[in-house]
């Protein structure tokens, strides 16, 4: 009652009630269908990502000193933090799946054809943006997987002739994945991409109202009709509930993974991407040497290009998939290729990294001590750590064993004026471990 009077009060002034009612009860050609709900589910998942993303920012700090511990706090200590992060984590996966399903559905329906080319193009832009989200969100927890996957991921465009190195530097904000990369990815992930995708979303939904959705290609089926509300909205709601229940369930039984703190010196780590990037990962196994660029640049960019020009090269107005053998077999081939590459990557354990000569256990222990003693707050390795003290890259080539071990105990004796605290309380074994670790940095 109150709601009704507020609405009529507003309508008296704005006069949009009729238009909105028209949209709400607009007939859906072909009747309400679950398959038409995929777009709505993507919208729901986007809202999920925005909501949980904003709430994670309550406790997240985009700095190598804090990011990992902040995420750990969210995951393990903040009340329901595991759920907030889990909904974001699994929501991202669900979004990748639903976006792909939506694209396939639209393609099968021939909904990229005249007059819906702009609908398709704005959708394609969002499709690419979703992968941009997935890629930039990866680095933010600053754990081993985050760091190493980003090192490899940002190296991929580095294979481009001429401008490769420049692209890598632009992505990383320097030569290495560092604090600057983290703030860069954070800003892209939480500011640039959300606003950009929101703009495309407005475009996509406005165009939808103007060109109307693509009804079933069968004229007989298309003649059926049902109002958007409540028929289609009910189906949208049911699917939304199903997706929400699924990601909430996954967040509970399979909480978001958090590996150990990123360690730029640990070259034994074998990074594997998230499953939806497996195809690229696997593709890179087949294209080596001078053919590598085919996997890293040519095929992915060809795919992007194809998505953007498909409405203009396929101008046959026929939408019945049975009568579009070329388009549908092309889709089938792409899907099969994607599924096959993903499956192969999933079942294989991955290559043994070349640098996998087993590390001396004392080096590993030394690395753990380095982390435990907080050396990272003053010293940096590979651009990660403080700036107060000298960076330790290649320290193993600059200093000998005796210097290193003596310096830990009495830094001022070896480096007059040094502000480094004395580590004279460490046992001989621990000093040896730290020295072994320092010597491994070459």
């Amino acid at each position, binding site marked *: 009652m109150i709601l009704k009077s507020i609405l009529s009060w507003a309508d008296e002034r704005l006069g949009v009630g009729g238009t909105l009612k028209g949209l709400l009860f607009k007939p859906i050609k072909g009747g309400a269908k679950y398959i038409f709900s995929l777009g709505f589910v993507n919208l729901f998942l986007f809202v999920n990502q925005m909501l949980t993303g904003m709430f994670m920012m309550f406790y997240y700090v985009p700095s190598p000193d804090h990011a990992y511990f902040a995420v750990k706090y969210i995951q393990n200590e903040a009340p*329901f933090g595991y759920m907030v992060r889990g909904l974001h984590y699994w929501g991202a996966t669900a979004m990748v799946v639903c976006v792909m399903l939506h694209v396939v559905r639209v393609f099968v329906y021939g909904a990229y054809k005249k007059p819906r080319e702009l609908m398709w193009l704005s959708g394609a832009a969002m499709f690419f943006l979703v992968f941009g989200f997935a890629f930039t969100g990866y680095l933010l927890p600053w754990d081993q997987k985050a760091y190493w996957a980003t090192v490899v991921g940002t190296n991929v465009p580095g294979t481009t002739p001429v401008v490769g190195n420049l692209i890598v530097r632009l992505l990383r904000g320097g030569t290495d994945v560092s604090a600057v990369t983290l703030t860069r990815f954070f800003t892209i992930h939480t500011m640039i991409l959300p606003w950009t995708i929101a703009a495309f979303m407005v475009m996509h939904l406005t165009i939808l109202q103007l060109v109307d959705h693509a009804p079933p290609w069968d004229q007989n089926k298309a003649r059926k009709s049902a109002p958007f509300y409540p028929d289609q909205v009910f189906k949208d709601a*049911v699917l*939304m509930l199903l997706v929400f229940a699924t990601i909430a369930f996954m967040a509970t039984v399979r909480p978001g993974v958090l590996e150990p703190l990123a360690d730029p010196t640990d070259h034994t780590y074998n990074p594997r991407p998230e499953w939806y990037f497996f195809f690229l990962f696997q593709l890179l196994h087949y294209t080596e040497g001078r053919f590598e660029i085919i996997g890293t640049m040519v095929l992915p960019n060809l795919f992007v290009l194809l998505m953007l020009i498909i409405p203009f090269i396929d101008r046959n107005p026929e939408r019945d998939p049975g009568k579009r053998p070329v388009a549908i077999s092309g889709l089938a081939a792409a899907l099969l290729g994607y599924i096959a590459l993903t499956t192969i990557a999933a079942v294989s354990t991955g290559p043994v990294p070349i640098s996998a000569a087993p590390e001396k256990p004392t080096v590993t222990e030394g690395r753990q001590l380095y982390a435990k003693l907080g050396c990272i707050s003053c010293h940096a390795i590979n651009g990660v750590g403080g700036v107060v003290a000298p960076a330790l890259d290649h320290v193993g080539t600059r200093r000998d064993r005796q210097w290193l071990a003596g310096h830990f105990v009495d830094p001022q004796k070896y480096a007059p004026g040094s502000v480094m605290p004395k580590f004279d309380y460490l046992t001989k074994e621990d000093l040896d471990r730290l020295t072994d670790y320092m010597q491994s940095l070459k």
Partner: protein
Amino acid sequence: MPDDTSESRRRFLGYAIGGIAGAIAFGYALPLANYVVGPSLKKTEEEWSKVGSLDDLKVEEPATLTFSAYMKVGWTERKVEADIWAVRHADGTVTVFSPICPHLGCGYRWDAAAKNFACPCHASIYDITGKILGGPAPRGLDTLPAKVEGGLLYVKYEKFRLGIAEKVVA
């Protein structure tokens, strides 16, 4: 024209949509509200801090001891300097007082001549057991959990709400 069955079907679908939307809204509101409010209401749990050696304390002669405590706030841990008043008793036990006057939070001191604790701000006076003798303070000095192990004094540093008659952890 909608007949009765289609009218009731529409109404049912409308309720179902509302129900689903409500359930999902609740599904978000519960974790998100807890997530934001929880840390604000969480009681800070203090760890035992090593304050000093028992040998530094003379029997029934209050002394102020300064020490470093590690405070964990959210995901950060930082070292803070803190001090306490300690009174060693003949039986080897120690009474430890928070250094904060429970009136309005000034630092009080031991007046060795008068043999009482005196707050310089508003002249609250306490005896050596912390009992209030005079002045505006609503309660006596706040004792802190303390233990002696191996000749060393350990304290759990806590803060209490000021200006009220009861000792309540802040």
